[in-house]
């Protein structure tokens, strides 16, 4: 038992290590090498230069505020929504699923641009509206600020947090809450003293994923931070990379190394906080139907809050996207703008054979990549949760390795790595790169689902004579269906819009949607960009519906 677990652990360490360590090692080599590639004479100059930059301190302060602010906001919002959806009698629960998933499909660049159109201080649509309505002298909001960046990044990270927290909340053992109620604690107190502490692994996982993601985020800092002259790490790295023509990725990697160290430290902190995972085991055999809390008079106000949030997160940005895809150029809505609407951008995008090829490739990568990725994630999550040895700790950190490296740099790491292999310039390189980089999207939801499956359920299968594989297939996987669906959705919708790796690794024949998007964005063609963005959303929605449907069928089949 322990031996086979150790074997499994070490083989996973080898696989995941191979996937994630190679590009990072290439970057590490690059950061210590003279010249512009991964191989050169040893030098520490890049570190000296990178870390003696006087601007760095300011950048770090901004980054810390930005990252903590957005992760806290995203986690709190996700908790709020997950609790309302899974535990209360709030109406229109279907809305929550939509709310949690749609923003994930919007390319981050477009989401940020939408918010600039809504809340820029000069003529942002919402600002103008408020200014006129309240007879103000100046625009009430400025999206080009640290607060604006935090808001938009939090909204972008919210779906990930929700998809991790909601399944945990749904399979929570009600007895724990009920006993708190019996001992005289009111709903609120129960929530604070029992529900949240028991959900600690899922909450921490969501928070840490948010931290890592916002550290690596580039869209929000570049679209909203740069005009507001708020420099964070991602834009600082961009500055290092774009200044001059002989781009020195080694120097950027030198800065990236400390981001990496921060993230890996966070993972260890997380493991320490959740060390006694058995304490939180909640699904046992005695049924798992969460009780519903009557909201009473708060039902409608809370629903109004959710409706407002969905307006902010979905309706407005998607409406802006739709609108932008119809108007000939960037216009403030007006009678003239509506008169000028046409399908021109749509025709341009759909008539382009490259777009169709990109569409095919992206679909292939999303479905194939998410499936393979989830398969690997099931094993990795199993080991990180159920086998708590040093090796499993290493494994967990490994999954975060390329994920936590700033996006604009890790792509080059993968290029430096893949160019040494025959996979270079093939779809396989993209597939492997995607899985390696976004493995946490698969592992995190799976892990928080795993934490809740009592080890006896698995052990009894082994004692019954089932092999580990059979146990995985017949016992563990069916119990994990909600986690698996979450993981698949997260990965597939990420892969549909993946940009950072694609832009480096995509070649003629292996074009993907995001590369098309980037091309339009470099030319400032927001109309075509929006049309393609909506196509992406439609594809992702279809995938999500399909995944949810399959998940439900799978669950039903065994009951």
């Amino acid at each position, binding site marked *: 038992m322990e031996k086979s677990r150790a074997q499994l652990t070490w083989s996973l360490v080898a696989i995941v290590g191979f996937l994630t360590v190679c590009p990072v090692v290439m970057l590490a080599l690059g950061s210590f090498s003279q010249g512009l590639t991964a191989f050169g004479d040893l030098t520490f100059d890049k570190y000296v230069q990178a870390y003696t930059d006087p601007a760095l301190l300011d950048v770090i302060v901004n980054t810390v505020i930005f990252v903590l602010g957005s992760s806290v906001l995203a986690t709190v919002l996700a908790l709020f929504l997950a609790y309302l959806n899974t535990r209360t009698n709030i109406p229109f629960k279907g809305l929550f699923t939509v709310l949690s998933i749609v923003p994930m499909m919007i390319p981050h660049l477009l989401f940020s*641009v939408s918010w600039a159109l809504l809340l820029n201080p000069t003529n942002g649509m919402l600002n103008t509206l408020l200014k006129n309505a309240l007879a103000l002298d100046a625009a009430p909001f400025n999206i080009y600020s640290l607060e604006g960046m935090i808001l938009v990044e939090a909204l972008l990270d919210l779906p990930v947090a929700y998809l991790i927290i909601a399944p945990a909340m749904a399979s929570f053992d009600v007895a724990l809450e009920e006993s708190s109620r019996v001992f005289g604690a009111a709903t609120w107190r129960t929530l604070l003293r029992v529900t949240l502490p028991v959900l600690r692994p899922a909450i921490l996982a969501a928070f840490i994923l948010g931290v890592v993601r916002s550290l690596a985020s580039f869209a929000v800092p570049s679209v909203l931070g740069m005009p507001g002259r708020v420099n964070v790490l991602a834009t600082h790295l961009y*500055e290092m990379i774009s200044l001059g*023509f002989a781009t020195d990725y080694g120097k950027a990697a030198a800065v990236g190394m400390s981001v990496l160290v921060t993230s890996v430290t966070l993972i260890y902190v997380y493991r320490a906080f959740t060390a006694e995972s058995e304490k939180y085991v909640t699904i046992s055999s005695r049924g798992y139907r969460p009780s519903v809390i009557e909201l009473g008079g708060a039902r409608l106000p809370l629903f109004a809050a959710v409706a407002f949030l969905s307006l902010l997160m979905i309706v407005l940005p998607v409406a802006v996207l739709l609108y932008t895809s119809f108007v000939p150029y960037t216009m403030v809505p007006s009678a003239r703008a509506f008169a000028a609407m046409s399908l021109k951008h749509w025709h341009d995008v759909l008539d382009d054979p490259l777009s169709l090829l990109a569409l095919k490739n992206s679909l292939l990568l999303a479905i194939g990549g998410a499936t393979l990725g989830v398969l690997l994630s099931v094993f990795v999550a199993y080991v990180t949760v159920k086998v708590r040895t040093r090796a499993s700790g290493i494994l967990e950190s490994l999954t975060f390795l390329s994920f936590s490296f700033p996006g604009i740099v890790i792509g080059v790491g993968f290029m430096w790595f893949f160019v040494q292999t025959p996979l270079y310039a093939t779809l396989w390189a993209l597939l492997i790169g995607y899985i390696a980089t976004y493995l946490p999207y698969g592992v995190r939801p799976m892990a928080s689902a795993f934490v809740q499956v009592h080890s006896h359920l698995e052990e009894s299968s082994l004692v019954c004579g089932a092999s580990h594989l059979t146990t995985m297939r017949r016992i563990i996987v069916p119990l994990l269906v909600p986690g698996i669906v979450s993981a698949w959705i997260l990965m597939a919708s990420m892969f549909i819009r993946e940009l950072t790796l694609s832009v480096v690794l995509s070649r003629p024949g292996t074009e993907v949607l995001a590369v098309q998007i980037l091309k339009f964005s470099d030319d400032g063609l927001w109309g075509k960009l929006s049309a393609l963005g909506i196509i992406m959303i439609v594809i992702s929605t279809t995938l999500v519906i399909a995944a949810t449907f399959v998940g439900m069928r799978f669950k039903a089949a065994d009951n």
Partner: protein
Amino acid sequence: MRTLFVMAALLLAAQAHAADKSLLDAARKEGRVAFYANITAVEPIIKAFSVDTGVKADYTRIASPKFVATTITEFDANRLSADVVQAPVPVLELLKARGILARYPSPAAAGYPDWARKDDTMTLFGIEYVGLIFNKEQVKAADAPKRYQDLADPKWRDKIVMANPANHPSTISWLIGLKETVFKSDAEWMKFVQGLAANRPMFVASFGPTPAPVESGEKAIAISMPKYIITKAPAPLDWARLEQPLLGTPRAIAVTSKAPHPNAARVFVDYWLSKKSMEMLAKDVGEYVLAPGIYPPVEGMSTARVLPIRELSDEEIQKWGGEFKKIFALK
């Protein structure tokens, strides 16, 4: 004397034609050509090339910050698939220094200005020209700047959008170009830069996002590229007709030294520099090209003076980027 000249020219042309024929046959035998470029929206030329020559062209678009990294990584690993590379001159200079470029003086560049053929590896064919683009519904042509100095006028306060002068190489080069070729003295130039900074321009990451705020009316004027007047039509954009010349970093094209399809590469470069391609580039994409007599269909551009910026080293760009960061550091 004159007859001799004509005869010689005819002879050369005939020879060239024969050479063309055999080169094209060899290219067809190779079947394809791979093209790495930082220029966008050139798919129509790629398509036309394949139709006209029967050689399949694969176009990979690589943005400037990744261009050098990608090509030298592939070259060092013996995996460079590009037969032809196109990028700003400083980028190709870096590749040339590493031996990635082959010698190929294309006959198709015959009528180009002398400086377009600066050596026999790369041929300059266009200028990434920078101009002042304004929203003609918000700004009357008469109120548009007449000279660069006018941008420092406080009436443009909070109304300018530009790429971040601390990190956008083309904008940095443009500002230095102004110093060296337009302004009479460094002091006068510095006054202009400081005045521009005092007007608190909004910064974006590159030229790409500069027109959108002007189109929508968020800002009134952009330090941007006049080609957007073509690509973003019917947006209400116009360019400021300045008494001073427009400046830009030259674009160049070259054949790679270990090209897997060397003949197809030459055919491609010839085709690229031909009148037909350059007309497409000017007409469809609004590019400023060096082929004689071809201008982008931007009103007034055929009479404008457009000059290449001297090639700047990375050290200079970094140094000035740092300077501009300080000058523009206003909150």
